[in-house]
């Protein structure tokens, strides 16, 4: 029997199972989507007309609700006309996986419909630029202020009530105002992201700094560290890994503000692309764009997590993820080279 149980409460899984489940997490929704898309008797509430027959308003490839199609068929049959034919189909807003997969490629290679419109990669670049500047500006002020709030109760009492107050105002509410101040291009969008991120950031950072082990501060004091050194040589380095993780989470929040920010003023970036494609009813492109946002987010987060393990080796003295991955990939060869070592891992 395996040493590891699949449903052991709060127990770590062996790495092989962890990555397996990670893949399953993506395959399961994909399989569901495939089922709905490719098994014709599942859902498929529409009919795609193949042969219009005697129905005057039918056209090939037209999508019609099943009941309406059946009614027309009954009518034509009773009148003795040519019966129309069709295949069951899903609504236009649910393209099949292969269509979205194709769109993931073609969306980049298709020239924009209107002259002056942006290519997908240009739109993406614009969005990433917006996020980058918004998050950078927010962090440049939010992190230091948060650290000061966490370190000094007086600073916290003097700023946090107001920060808390503004935090509850939805960032998009500032849209019109920001357009008035910054114009209609990228600036108001960056401002919205700053507003959406900054106030949360101050509170989150302050809380993290506050959670620092007080014993470390006291140890610093008994070793002769005074105010400035206590802050910069003890408090900040002690909370740095947690602050880094906070920023990772906040970056995710910044992405959620992106879509509402980009409709402020002149619609731009990935939002503009999505809206434009929806207008042309190219829903495969819409899905492709949304998936790309997800991929960018996930990839950024993974890169940041990887860098985090490198930046704070003292926090996580295990071998790096890359090395673990390499070892896992070459597990069999590893066994030949060092037959004793992985033995401990695999035997129960």
């Amino acid at each position, binding site marked *: 029997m395996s040493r590891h149980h699949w449903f052991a409460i709060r127990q770590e899984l062996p790495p092989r199972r962890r990555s397996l489940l990670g893949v399953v997490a993506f395959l399961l929704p994909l399989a569901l989507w495939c089922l709905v898309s490719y098994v014709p008797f599942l859902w498929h509430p529409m009919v795609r007309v193949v042969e219009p027959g005697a129905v005057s308003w039918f056209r090939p490839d037209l999508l019609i609700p099943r009941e309406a199609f059946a009614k027309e068929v009954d009518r034509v049959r009773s009148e003795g006309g040519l019966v129309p034919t069709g295949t069951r189909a899903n609504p236009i807003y649910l393209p099949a996986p292969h269509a979205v997969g194709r769109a993931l490629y073609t969306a980049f290679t298709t020239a924009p419909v209107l002259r002056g419109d942006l290519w997908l990669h240009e739109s993406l670049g614009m969005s990433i630029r917006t996020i980058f500047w918004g998050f950078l500006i927010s962090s440049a002020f939010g992190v230091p202020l948060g650290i000061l709030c966490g370190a000094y109760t007086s600073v916290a009492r003097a700023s946090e009530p107001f920060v808390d107050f503004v935090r509850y105002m939805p960032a998009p509410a500032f849209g019109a105002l920001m357009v008035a101040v910054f114009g209609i291009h990228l600036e108001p969008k960056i401002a919205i992201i700053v507003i959406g991120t900054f106030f949360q950031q101050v509170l989150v950072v302050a809380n993290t700094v506050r959670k620092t*082990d007080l*014993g*470390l501060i*006291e*140890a*610093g*004091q*008994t*070793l*002769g*560290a*005074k105010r400035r*050194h206590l802050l910069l*040589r*003890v408090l900040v*380095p*002690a909370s*740095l890994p947690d602050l880094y993780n906070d920023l990772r989470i906040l970056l995710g929040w910044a992405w959620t503000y992106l879509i509402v920010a980009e409709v402020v003023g002149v619609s731009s970036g990935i939002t503009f692309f999505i809206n434009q494609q929806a207008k042309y009813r190219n829903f495969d492109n819409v899905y492709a764009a949304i998936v790309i946002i997800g991929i960018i987010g996930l990839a950024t987060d993974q890169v940041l997590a990887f860098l985090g393990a490198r930046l*704070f*080796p*003292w*926090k996580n*003295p295990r071998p790096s993820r890359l090395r673990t991955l390499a070892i896992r990939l070459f597990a069999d060869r590893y066994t030949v080279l060092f037959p004793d070592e992985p033995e401990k891992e695999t035997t129960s």
Partner: protein
Amino acid sequence: MSLPPASMLESDYRVQSPAVAERFRKLRERPVVLSVEHLGKEFEGEGGPVTALRDVSFEVRRREFLCVIGPSGCGKSTLIRMVAGLDYPTAGRMLLDGREVSGPGPDRGMVFQGYTLFPWLNVTRNVMFGLEMQGMSRDQAEAEARQWIDLVGLSRFEKTYPAQLSGGMKQRTALARALAANPRILLMDEPFGALDAQTRAQMQTHLLEIWRNVDVTILFITHDLDEAILLADRILVLKANPGEVQEVIEVPVPRPRSWRR
């Protein structure tokens, strides 16, 4: 065989051999490093102020090893934290080398039960911390730190981060870190309380050895009577509710001491 009468037992533990008496006579001639005068601490409790410590006075002389012992809740941790300057007394004062002190400072080094090593610094950098705070250059601090690390026997672990050290090794590092800052008095707040019995015995022997070789005065908090008897020149016994000095005992056991009987 019957036990001797209680009155005899009472006086027994104070009897010193001539050699030990001579040692204490010499000790009393040394200059006072720390003088605690009528120290008291009151907390604001729910039903009015609660007295944690009342009128605690004692002196620690140069190179003396003084243990403070008492039941939990007697305020011995509060006492050492006040000496370290991490808590403020509500009465009395403390003199270090004759000068009144308040607030934390590097002249009173501290070793905590919970290690409190800086996890982002390796052993060397941890030990260097106090030296760097005193304005020593990095190279000089590193050279100095290395000697202290040698002394506590961690030369092989200079580049190791605290997370990878065992409890005993962590406490050795903390000891080296506190000693490197060259404090007038070393405060130790139940430093071996979190260690297993074997490691604790090792660390006690190790501490005695260091104390013999280094010019350092130690104020050591413990709730373990055996530990106090093994380590201390004198033992300050606190009683609880309120925390007061019950008595000060000159340990009559000759040195060197060890766990072997």
